[in-house]
């Protein structure tokens, strides 16, 4: 590519930065690094990255506070967080982060998340009303779901749930975000609605509902629509 996309890697550990730097450079991204909140804030102004890989444990400021600031400038934010820090992940996502990866991460996984995030940045400009995952086709403009070309009947809530995932396809959507946009404000903690909808969709769309391939549950965080491009 003539004009490589820029990724900002934010982590206070030089070793982690070096590791990511190597992997990302090999995938033809331009990489800039920051080790603190202060460096991050200047880097997003100067280097204008498309994606920020943000570790939340920074020495000078809580990484969570940076998310709204970064998002207001433009780049996508992918949070790098410890495996067990579920609350932190949810908080980051609800503050506007686009996605997260757990430490220790797999370079392939990081690259896939970056690709998804970049695709959304581009897609938001030229909205694509049809999302495809395998033989499932979600027509957001026509509000129609097809499986192998056949129109499938979903309840309004099931469709709303699926459409919400499809709009962010490949990215995780938190429980609260799903409940707010499909069931309305005031239902943010009625997680069982989501369970019911997810089960209904799987029953109707999955080949084997016991081994779902379409909608992935991220325990305690949210749901993710699996598209072929992202895995």
């Amino acid at each position, binding site marked *: 590519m003539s004009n490589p996309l820029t990724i900002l890697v934010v982590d206070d550990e030089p070793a982690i930065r070096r590791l990511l730097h190597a992997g990302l450079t090999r995938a033809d991204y331009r990489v800039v690094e920051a080790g603190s909140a202060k460096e991050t804030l200047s880097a997003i102004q100067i280097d204008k990255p498309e994606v920020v890989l943000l570790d939340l444990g920074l020495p000078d400021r809580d990484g969570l506070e940076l998310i709204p600031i970064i998002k207001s400038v433009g780049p996508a934010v992918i949070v790098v967080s410890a495996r067990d820090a579920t609350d932190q992940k949810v908080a980051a996502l609800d503050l506007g982060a686009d996605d997260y990866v757990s430490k220790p991460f797999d*370079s392939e996984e990081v690259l896939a998340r970056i690709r998804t995030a970049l695709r959304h940045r581009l897609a938001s400009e030229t909205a694509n009303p049809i999302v495809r995952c395998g033989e499932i086709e979600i027509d957001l403009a026509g509000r129609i779901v097809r499986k192998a070309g056949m129109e499938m009947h979903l309840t309004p809530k099931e469709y709303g749930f699926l459409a919400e995932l499809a709009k962010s396809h490949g990215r995780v959507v938190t429980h609260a975000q799903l409940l707010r946009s499909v069931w309305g404000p005031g239902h943010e903690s009625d997680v069982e609605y989501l369970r019911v909808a997810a089960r209904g969709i799987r029953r109707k769309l999955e080949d084997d509902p016991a081994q779902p391939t379409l909608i992935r549950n991220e*325990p305690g965080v949210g749901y993710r629509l699996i598209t072929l491009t992202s895995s």
Partner: protein
Amino acid sequence: MNPPRPDPDALLRAAAREGKGRLKVFLGAAPGVGKTYEMLSDGAARRDAGIDVVIGVVETHGRRETEDKVHGLEVVPRKRIAYQGHILDEMDIDAILARKPALALVDELAHTNAPGSRHDKRYQDVEELLEAGIDVYSTLNIQHLESLNDLIASFTKVRVRETLPDRVIEDADLEIVDIPPDELIERLREGKVYVPEVATRALGHFFSKSNLSALRELALRRAAQAVDAQMLDYMRANAVGGTWAVNDRLVVAISEQPGALELVRAAKRLADALRAPWTAVHIETPRSTGFTDAENAQLAETIHLAAQLGAQVATVPATSVVEGLKHFAADARATQLIVGKSVRSRWFEMRHGSIVDRLVRETPGLAVHVLPLELAPPQRSLPPGRPVSAWGAPSGYAVSLGLVLLVTLLGMAIFARGNITNIGLLFLIPVMVAATRYGLRTGIVTGLVSSLAYNFFFIPPTHTFTIEDPQNIITVLVLLGVAIVGSQLASQVREQALLAQASSAQNSSLAGFARQLTGISTTDELAQVLCAEVARLLDGNTIILIPEKDSLSIRASCPSGYKLELLDEAAARWTLDNNKPAGRGSDTLTASEWLFYPVGTASKVMAVFGLSRSDARAPIRSDQLPLLLSLLDQAGLALERIALEEEMSNLAHVRERDRLRHALLSSVSHDLRTPLTTILGSLKEIRATSPEQEQQLLATRSEAERLHRFVANLLDMVRIEAGSLHQSIEPVDLSEAVASALHDLGAALLDHPTHMKIPADLPFVLVDPQLFHHCLINLIENAAKYGQPGTPVTIAAHRDTHGLALSVEDEGLGIPEGQEKRIFETFTRIEGSDRKGGTGLGLAIVKGFAEAMGLEVCAANRSGGRGASFIIRFRPGQLREWPQE
């Protein structure tokens, strides 16, 4: 003018009643007035009003109307107690406590329980029910009331053995069950009261019209008094009515004489009438040390009765009754003093003066009530226990007579120089010495010998025992008189000194004990010191039990190494639960060999102290009780102090431990995880250039992954043990959760097909999704690890009566017998499984996470076929049905 202020005492009484059951007593003048019938009717009415009513015990005496009433009310079966070949039915208090009704009907409040029951008296059972918050209806005949017992016995000539302390019904609601005497006599004739053959006999004695009228009046008066008192209490607690008189304070002096019992009852009646607090005081004089066992027992009974009737009891040492009473009444700010006028010989009164006269004279401002003590004092044996025998020590005689000899020789020397009549005065010296130093009898003997010697050697005619000059008779009498008076004075002084010594011995043992306690910093040490000290002071066996979790354990005993019988333990337990003494010599569980006292504060028992004797005597004499109680009070305070100190230091320990844990947690998470992430990431980037390198790379990667899993597990374990698991409980769909776990396990399950048997109609489980996810991953990974390659892992769930069970089953070698629990312990791996590459933490984490969420995990071998089965159990409260859409 100030607004009326509530009386604190009345408020306290009201507060003490809160949370307890209410007692309602159906009070009757005589048997047969219909108390039980009335109680049952009331109980039935309450039941109809929706109250949970049971019959604890009801005696129908075969009366038809009453028996009819019982029908329709739930009866708690009685307990059968075997006693000397008879089977006695008694109320089953434990069954009632377990049944926990809102209201229990318990007939005949004054009933005495069969020996071997928990309490001697039924009213004690009732008090326990009330403590447990159960309302009680009961019945009572007026003649059973302790304070009226003597009065009623005096006109009915029938003394009832079963008496009830007045305090029991003081706070109770009283309902008078009243029928006119004529009607009662009529009912009696018709055989409606007792079984017929007894009726006629009873009629003649007890049920005369005049008796019944008197009893009826007493019952009505008592009820009216109770209403008055409760009204007054209410008014004071709520400060209605503004002013009331300064309370009277009443002191009754009690002695070892049997008549003192009646004195105490009279005092109770007066105190009730005056609404005054009252104190029974025993003045301990030098005479008290010479009490016989019978007298001591009589005194103890009187003190016990006074305490039962609600008096404060005090024992005060003093040189004389008058002195003691005077000071005590002044200290207690008494307004009324009740004394008994004992029937003493005129001679005794001439010598000692009438106690009553002196009291009246010396206590102006105090109303002194004098009641006759009708009963003659018991036979007094020779005063035992005097430190020196009454006749004095032989050495005393030797010294005294030696002195007489000396004086005689000296007198003869003077006599030889001329007849000096005042030589007789010389003999005062040996008499005074003998009387003051060796007591009355030695003094009199010396006086006699002196006068004889004086007479023989110096009174003309000398060398005879005849006296010519009457003037010399006076000399002889004076010598004898000096002997008597001197010895009396001296012995009083001596006895006072002895008493002061005894009292100071008591004070010094208290002070010594207090000093010892201040240096003690552990419960064990305190227990040992207390046991040893009390055993030494009271000359008995002692033991201390301290509650630990649910059991009472022996902390110390003297002599050491004591064990308790089951019955003794029950008594100790009762003391712990009720904060009251129990065991031999108390009111409760008297068959125990030990007498137990609670040690602690008024609100909390911190230990139970037991006392026993090897011989059959009561564990403690009444005169030792104040000392023991003071010692226990001090020990209680010290125990509380130690407990607080231990709590403080435990808290400090816990804080320090938490700090270390936290430090470890963050250091491991950061210092190990970050380099591992880098290593793992880098390893994946590296491309091998030869097959050998490829092999090495694979091995390195798998080892690094293992190390990473180990660190992650270690971190989880630290979080579990630090109790720092953060949870957010949400409804989780089991099949979805299992699917997520299977997905995340990915490559680990390549060798094992998985079967999921989770019915679609199962409810949600309420768990923390993240922790539950890790539980599932660890369980499934464990199953894959121990199952032979190619064998399936089955995840199944089903509902049962206990909730829901999720099982993960493998087809491996199973769990060695007896290891089912151990495999959940930290760093446990099944023997011979070292090569499986586990860290020994997986199952411990499953258990830790599951228990943190309130789930239960267990392991067993599969019932049909090879392999192990791990089960997570959800209680019904952890399930939620699917919403209906």
